[in-house]
C-alpha cells in the first residue's frame, strides 16, 4: 500500500512542474552540430562550381545503392578557372533508400558531399523522393552558410587554393632555377 501511495505522490508532484515535452510542429528542438541529415553536395565559391567531380566512389560504397552520378569534361578547366578536369553533370539521391549512414562523406576524396541538417523531407509522391543535383546543391549551400563548413583538404580541393598553388609551383620553379646558386649555397651547417 505504501509503495502505491509513493507512486501516486510521484505522479502528483508533476502537476506543479513544467512539462518536458515540446509541441513538435510549432516548436522545433535544436539540432546538434554533428547531426546527420540528408546528404548534400557542396559548392566551391572560388570557381563557381560544385566540388563534386563525379568520381563515383560514394556510389560504389553506398550500402543501399541510393545514388547515381554522371560526369562530364569541365568547361571551366579549359578556361583556366578551375583545376578540376571532370565535373558532375547529373547526380541523384533517392531518399527513400538512403539510410543516412554517412559512409559517402567518409569515402569522398574531394570534400564534395556532407551530411546536411535537412531532415523534414516528408512528401506525398513517391516520385518526389528522387533528389536532383540542383536540390542537393541548394541543400549544400544552405548547410555551408549556416554551419560555417570548412573543407578538410583545401589545398587539393578548393579551386582557388589549388590553382594558386599550381601557379606558385610553376613560377617559383622558374624563379628558383635562376636564383638557384644563391639559395642553395648556404646550407645550415655552413651558416652557423
Amino acid at each position, binding site marked *: 500500500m505504501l*509503495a502505491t501511495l509513493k507512486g501516486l505522490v*510521484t505522479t502528483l508532484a508533476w502537476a506543479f512542474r513544467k512539462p518536458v515535452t515540446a509541441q513538435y510542429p510549432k516548436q522545433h528542438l535544436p539540432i546538434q552540430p*554533428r547531426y*546527420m541529415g540528408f546528404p548534400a553536395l557542396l559548392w566551391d565559391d572560388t570557381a563557381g562550381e560544385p566540388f563534386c567531380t563525379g568520381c563515383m566512389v560514394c556510389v560504389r560504397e553506398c*550500402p543501399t545503392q541510393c545514388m547515381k552520378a554522371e560526369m562530364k569534361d569541365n568547361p571551366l578547366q579549359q578556361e583556366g578557372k578551375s583545376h578540376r578536369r571532370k565535373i558532375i553533370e547529373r547526380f541523384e539521391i533517392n531518399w527513400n533508400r538512403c539510410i*543516412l549512414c554517412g559512409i559517402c562523406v567518409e569515402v569522398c576524396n574531394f570534400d564534395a558531399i556532407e551530411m546536411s541538417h535537412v531532415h523534414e523531407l516528408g512528401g506525398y509522391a513517391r516520385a518526389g523522393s528522387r533528389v536532383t543535383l540542383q536540390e542537393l546543391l541548394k541543400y549544400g549551400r544552405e548547410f555551408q552558410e549556416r554551419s560555417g563548413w570548412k573543407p578538410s583538404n583545401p589545398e587539393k580541393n578548393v579551386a582557388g587554393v589549388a590553382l594558386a598553388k599550381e601557379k606558385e609551383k610553376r613560377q617559383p620553379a622558374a624563379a628558383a632555377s635562376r636564383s638557384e646558386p644563391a639559395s642553395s649555397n648556404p646550407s645550415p651547417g655552413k651558416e652557423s
Partner: protein
Amino acid sequence: MTTEKQQETVELLLNMGPQHPATHGVFRMVLWIDGERVVDVEPHIGYLHRGSEKLCEGESYAQIVTLFDRLDYIANFNNELVVCRAAEKLMGVEVPERAQYIRVILCELNRIASHLLFYGTYGLDAGAMTPVLYAFRERERIQNLFEAVSGARMMHNFFRIGGVNEDVPPDFGQRVRRIMGELRRGMEECDRLLSFNEIFLSRTRGIGAIDAETAIDYGLTGPNLRACGVPYDVRKDDPYEVYDRLEFDVPVAEHGDCWDRYWLRVQEMYQSLHIVEQCLEQMPEGPVMAQLRRIARPPKGEVFVHCENPRGDLGVYLVSDGGPKPYRVKVRPPSFCSLMPLKHLMRGCYVADCVVILGSIDIVLGEVDR
C-alpha cells in the same frame, strides 16, 4: 450420441499477433486455451526477416556495421561493437585506448537506454500507463547525447574497425556527468513509481518462473539468466575492451520470475552508471582510430567474438576468405535464445500473464528474425 459430442469441451485457439502492441514487434503466438489457462503455445517468427546474415556476404566490412545497427535496434552501439571487434580480432588490430573507453561509455549508456525502454514498455504490459512516459523522458537525454556524438539518435554507424569514426565533442565529459546526475534522479523516480507497486507485484511475482538449470539448457543469457541466480556476464567472464579495469557488480536474482527479471534490469542500470563514471575518470587523451588501410581486408580465417548486450550474450562468427567482403557471418542473437523457453514459461499460466511473460524476457524482433 450426437448430444454427447456437442457437450465436449474443446480447446480454444487464440492468435496473438503479429500486429499486437504487447509483442514488441511483429511476433505471432498461437495459444491453445482451456478456459483461462494456456495449454500450449507456438511461436511464429520471421515477420521481420531481412536476411541480414546473407546481405553481409555482399557488403564490405565498413558497410556491415550499418546492417548490425539494425539487428537490435534499441541497442545499436552494442551491436556495432561486436562486429567491429570480430573484424579487429581477425586482423589483429590494436584499438587505441581512448577509442576503447569511448566505446565502453557509449555501450553502457546504450544499455541504460535499452533497459529504460524495457522498464517503460514493461509497465505498459502490466497495465501501468504512466511509467513509459517517465522512461522516455530519461531515455531522451541519452539519445540527445548520442546525436551530439555520432550524429544520429539511432542507427549511428559510429564505430569503425580499428576505433571510432570521430573523437567525441570537447564538452562530452561535462555533458555525460550532467546527464548521469539527471539519469540517477530520474531512475530513482521511476523506481518509486513502479517497482514495489502492489498491483505490479501481484502481476509479476511468481509468474513465469524458470530455474537455473532449465535456463542454461535453453541457452538463456544476460539478464534472463542472471535472474535465475547464475552470475554469468561476458563483461566479467570474458572481458573485452577495458572492462577488466573497471569495477562493477553483476546483479543476480534468485527466483527467475518476471519480477526478478525486471528488478535485475533496474539494478543493472545503476551499475552501468557506475561504469560510465569510472570510464570518464580513466579516459586518456590520444588517437581514436588505429592506423589501417582504407579498405579493411582481414586475412583468411574465422573468428568468434561475443559481447554482453543489454539482452544477453551476442555472438558473431565471422569467416573471411581474405577478400574485402566476409565469406560468412553468423549471428548468435540473445533475443532468439530468450524465446526458446517460451513454452516452458507459458504452459499453465493465465492468458493475461502471457503478455507479462513475453514482456519480461525483453525480446527485440529485429534481432530474433535478423
